């Protein structure tokens, strides 16, 4: 078992924990936290593969994971705006109760 496999196992653990949060949580903010965990696990994969399977002057994985971080920031901002609107309109952030299409 080499070092790369440890990183990959850790990132798959983080990914499945994020999926568990998305499936089982009721609060929308907690679901957002699960999505952040999944994005982080993808970042760990990018950087681990870049470190272990390419030469030193190749930093494409770093650039990809930077783009993922920026996308995560944009996604968190938009999702929180939507969640705040949900709370304003329905008085709850429970995604099971937000079942109406007409606001």
């Amino acid at each position, binding site marked *: 078992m080499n070092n790369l496999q440890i990183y990959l196992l850790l990132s798959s*653990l983080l990914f499945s924990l994020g999926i*568990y949060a998305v*499936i089982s949580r009721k609060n929308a903010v*907690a679901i957002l936290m699960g999505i952040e965990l999944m994005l982080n696990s993808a970042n760990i994969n990018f950087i681990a593969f870049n470190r272990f399977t390419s030469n030193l002057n190749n930093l494409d994985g770093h650039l990809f994971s930077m783009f993922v971080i*920026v996308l*995560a920031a944009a996604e*968190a901002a938009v999702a*929180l705006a939507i969640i705040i609107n*949900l709370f304003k309109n329905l008085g709850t*952030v429970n995604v099971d109760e937000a079942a109406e299409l007409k606001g």
Partner: protein
Amino acid sequence: MGEIIFLSLIIIISSSAIWVVVSPNLVHSAVSLLITLFGVAGLYVFLYADFLAATQVVIYVGGILVLIIFGVMLTNKIDKPVIESNSSNKIIGLFVSGFIFSILSFVVLQTNWQIAQNNIEGDSTVKLIGYLILGKYLLPFELISVLLLAALVGSAMLARKKINE
């Protein structure tokens, strides 16, 4: 010494990530997400990604986590001492995520990874990343700045108070 720090990082990351998804208190989840993100930044340091570690701390811990805590505080009655976050579908969630984790770890352990042997400590990655951003990845860089601007304007428009028409 390095191995002890690495193992403790892994233990810290996995335990705090588990607490993020099972904690009944939402604020505890947010604080454990903070610990997880810091631990991932430490992992980046072990992978010789110094610029990414700094970016992770600045953007994730300083930006996204503050946004999430704002979200927790704005969408709950904070006079209650415990902000609850219930879980449902625990069995299905455990089944699906356990299935995905077992498949992924099977693949990871079975594959014969080709490890490049020329990995020694190099210079700081900042210079090379700068060359890449302004050279090979110039178009995605500009596109993502436009996307960030659009997301900023869109979320400000979504979250503002509606003026009575």
